[in-house]
């Protein structure tokens, strides 16, 4: 079973977590000023890389907190986990 390091609770089994999609997707401060292409990009398009990926997880059956994980999508190796608001290490 994959162990995910929660920044609050430490290593916990994957089944306790919920996936939250790609991290660091920034919403425009004023969406009305965005053109359609940029808004579509924000709403629907994600990187989906084969390799290192920064993603959000929620410790749903645990402390309940969202946090970020840097995971290799090919090997499933988790390099780092860090709290929301912190920069990608």
């Amino acid at each position, binding site marked *: 079973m994959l162990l995910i390091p929660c920044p609050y*609770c430490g290593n916990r089994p994957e089944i306790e977590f919920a996936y939250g999609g790609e991290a660091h997707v920034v919403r425009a401060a004023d969406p009305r000023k965005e053109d359609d292409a940029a808004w579509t990009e924000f709403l629907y398009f994600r990187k989906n890389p084969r390799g290192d990926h920064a993603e959000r997880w929620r410790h749903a*059956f645990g402390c309940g907190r969202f946090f970020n994980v840097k995971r290799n999508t090919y090997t499933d190796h988790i390099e780092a986990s860090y709290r929301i608001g912190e920069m990608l290490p």
Partner: protein
Amino acid sequence: MDNLAETTSLSRLFALSGQAGDRHCRPVTGGARFSLRVPQASLGAAGEALGLDLTGPINRAVSAGQRTALRLGPDEWLLLLAETDAATVAASLSQRLTDGLYSLADISHRQTGIALEGVAVTDILNGGCPLDFDPAAFPVGMATRTIFFKAEIVLWRQDLTRFHMEVWRSFAPYVWSLLANVGCEYAD
């Protein structure tokens, strides 16, 4: 809120009524529960109001007398109290935390308790819960929210072979029957 805390008079609502239990598990009736959310800045004042030290690490239990606080998250505690104590605790918290930046929700009726005891208890829990129950990884005094098969539970290790489980009332018969099922395999 006073009415809500009177769980004893509402025995028909108790999810496991009629379940006597066996050597491993038995239902825990009564008791009041609060979900408490407090910001870091007010931890000291909230702790004084409760008579408990809330500054301890996450996923640990602190007890004093009949009051217990399980720290489930960075700013979230589950308070387990005697029913007669519920109103006192609510009043003293509102008295001490004058800025009002906290939340105290009475969840006495939302969940019910199950006491688990026996040398095989960690094996039985591992039937549906993926946590490592080695004393080094899950020491006595640790308490955390986790999962048992598909139900959300809170587990508090009171002793090496004794656990207290909090489960939502509507999930209780499901959890209970699975505990009994897994328990069949352990003869201690």
